[in-house]
């Protein structure tokens, strides 16, 4: 997965720094707790002292100071990888919480402690994936999927890619050309459908998108089509009338799934708009496009964390097959494990 490579190599550097600092700190705590020169000359130390030595030798506390420098670096890495500021702050505080006050146990390497702290924090923000074919198999047909998002994130291209993906998985598909606003949008989706050999329902430019999508659903029901993919016009979350239009679409076509589409290269605004879309029309899953542009993928972390909804696919190119299901566990494993060389 190219998308997270950059973040990965840099995370691993930080990991090393964290470990180093903890090692140094622990080297300072161990035997030093015995007053220098006390042990050999004096009588054998008392029972309590011996216990103390045993404990401090093998366990130690990690204090906030030991890791504040590497944590600052981690913060910078996350920010530079487009993880939004509030999300970054939360990850940092999770890692700090997981690390500080923790005792290092006998036989446990620093490496393990650091990796598990980072791992837990990331798992917490990335959540689970979403298996679309399994979802479709488990639900009544037609399964209606509504695509939403701001302008230019790649909704139309994504609809075409998903149509192709589902067709390959043996499902029948109909597309509803719900972007009746942007010039050329209907021509665009129509051409995709033609190339893919998929039925498309369309009205004229400027028509009511709810009506188009309603017709698409009607068509699917009448012809026993498995999936309806409903494209919509891009809209900004701060435009009340356009969000109301989307709400009307939702009421009319009653989608089973609302998929929010955004781009992997988006910065801090990703959080703001994901939250607004989730709030006004809801979102069941997220698709991130243009993941091939970026090797860092912070937006994935930001959005997943903000709306707490699974990431379903990553769009990774301009071809119909350039879409891959997202598996958080694999991604995190890749982020933290392995060497940088085989990235």
């Amino acid at each position, binding site marked *: 997965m190219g998308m997270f490579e950059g973040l990965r190599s840099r995370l691993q550097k930080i990991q090393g720094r964290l470990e180093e600092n903890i090692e140094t700190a622990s080297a300072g705590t161990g035997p030093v707790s015995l007053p220098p020169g006390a042990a050999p000359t004096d009588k054998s130390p008392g029972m309590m002292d011996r216990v103390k030595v045993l404990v401090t030798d093998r366990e130690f506390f990690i204090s906030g100071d030991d890791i504040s420098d590497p944590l600052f670096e981690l913060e910078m890495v996350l920010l530079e990888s487009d993880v939004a500021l509030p999300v970054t702050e939360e990850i940092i505080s999770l890692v700090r919480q997981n690390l500080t006050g923790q005792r290092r146990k006998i036989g446990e390497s620093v490496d393990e402690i650091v990796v598990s702290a980072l791992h837990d924090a990331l798992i917490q923000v990335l959540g689970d994936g979403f298996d679309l074919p399994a979802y479709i198999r488990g639900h009544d047909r037609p399964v209606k999927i509504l695509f939403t998002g701001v302008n230019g994130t790649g909704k139309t291209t994504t609809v075409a890619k998903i149509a192709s993906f589902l067709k390959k998985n043996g499902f029948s598909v109909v597309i509803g050309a719900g972007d009746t606003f942007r010039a050329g949008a209907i021509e665009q989706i129509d051409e995709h459908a033609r190339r893919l050999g998929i039925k498309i329902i369309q009205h004229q430019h400027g028509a009511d998108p709810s009506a188009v999508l309603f017709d698409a659903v009607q068509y699917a029901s009448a012809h026993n089509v498995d999936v309806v993919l409903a494209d919509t016009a891009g809209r900004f979350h701060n435009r009340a009338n356009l969000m109301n239009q989307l709400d009307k679409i939702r009421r009319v076509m009653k989608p089973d799934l609302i998929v929010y589409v955004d781009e992997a290269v988006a*910065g801090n605004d990703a959080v703001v708009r994901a939250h607004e879309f989730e709030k006004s029309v809801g979102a069941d899953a997220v698709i991130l496009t243009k993941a091939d*542009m970026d090797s860092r993928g912070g937006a994935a972390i930001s959005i997943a964390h903000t709306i707490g909804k699974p990431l379903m696919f990553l769009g990774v190119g301009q071809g119909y097959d350039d879409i891959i299901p997202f598996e958080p566990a694999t991604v995190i494993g890749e982020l933290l494990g392995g060497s940088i060389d085989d990235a």
Partner: protein
Amino acid sequence: MLDRLGTSLKDALKKLAGKTVVDRAAVDELVKDLQRALIQADVNVKLVMALSQAIKTRSLEEEPPKGMSVREHVLRIVYQELVRLMGPTGEVKLGPQVILMAGLQGSGKTTTTAKIARYFQRKGLRVAVICGDTFRPGAYEQLSTLCSRIHVPCFGDPTDKDARKMVREGLKVHTGTEVVIIDTQGRHALEADLIQEIIDINTLSNATHRWLVIDAALGQQASEQARRFHEAIDIDGVIITKMDGTAKGGGALSAVAETKSGIVFIGSGETIEDLERFDPDGFISRLLGMGDLRALVERAEESISEGEIDVNAMMRGKFTLRDMYKQLEAVNRMGPLKQIMSMLPMGNLELPGEAYDMTSAKMAKYRIIMDSMTAAELDEPSLLSSSRVQRIAIGAGATPDEVRELLKYYKTMKRALKGVRGGQGKFNMQRMMKRFGGM
């Protein structure tokens, strides 16, 4: 969230007020808030760190000029450094030229191409466009539809896949046209073939300008992408699109820094007229989520002329419908109410967000209703009996309920301003919040 940022920045600035020597802690706090604001606006993290270091050093080392308070001195440094970060405003000449549009997929090149065509057309130049996007389905239809609405000739062929040929032929067809704009396919820096394609198009078109279109929401990736585009075709201007959303456009600043160019235009809406020339002050205020910084620097009191809003009368509690009318007019001219309010010397007053949440449609309606009032009514709203309300409603083509709604809004504003004057602390503010909440 973002509003809170602006507030904390203001608080940090306030802490500097009244101090005679620059207080290191106060500067540190200010710089930290500034960092947060800029990072949240997607400005490149390294740029932000360099900028904040410069502000810190200058604030602590430079002596404030005579007669300038510490706060004004630091503010001025912050402002100067931010302006430097903006780069110069990109140049737009009104003469014969070929403009090549470049940018990532979905950044809004096609829409912007049509908007720029409209811009030059309105300046009285003969304009034509070439559709160099031979990849995306519907690209030619989109551009030609937009162009036909403004009667600008558009050259292209949706069945031909050779972008270089399209541009070559398009330039031939459009010889004699003053401004030719070439729209291109979206591409990113890692797509070597496509980068080569735009290099070729640039060479064969001998473009006067190569403008990079950047989505306001683009994050840290902006630097890298801009650098690669710059290496390929020597970008000499940046256009920020989708500024009508909530994104702050900090990525565009990273692009400006990488290309050592300036911002030319800002796209802020879906209609063909929604294109503005770049205004650094407005942009800074958006980046920081606070009012116009320059106005603050030049002392807010002086920057708003007496005729527009009589701040003092408002503070005395005399706030008439006429004042509100002026206010709405000012809002139309100067941008959101929020920004105007944040420029007013009202100390730490924060009006609740609902007070600003008036749609532009409603604002227009309010103005029409007030246009139907007599001068006496505007000055003395208590005259408005139900028969007068009835008359106004008929005159304005509104319902009496709408007139009453306006009066309710007026009363809320008036009460809010009274609250400011009375300054009865938290309790008063809370009561006010409740009232606004009930609207």
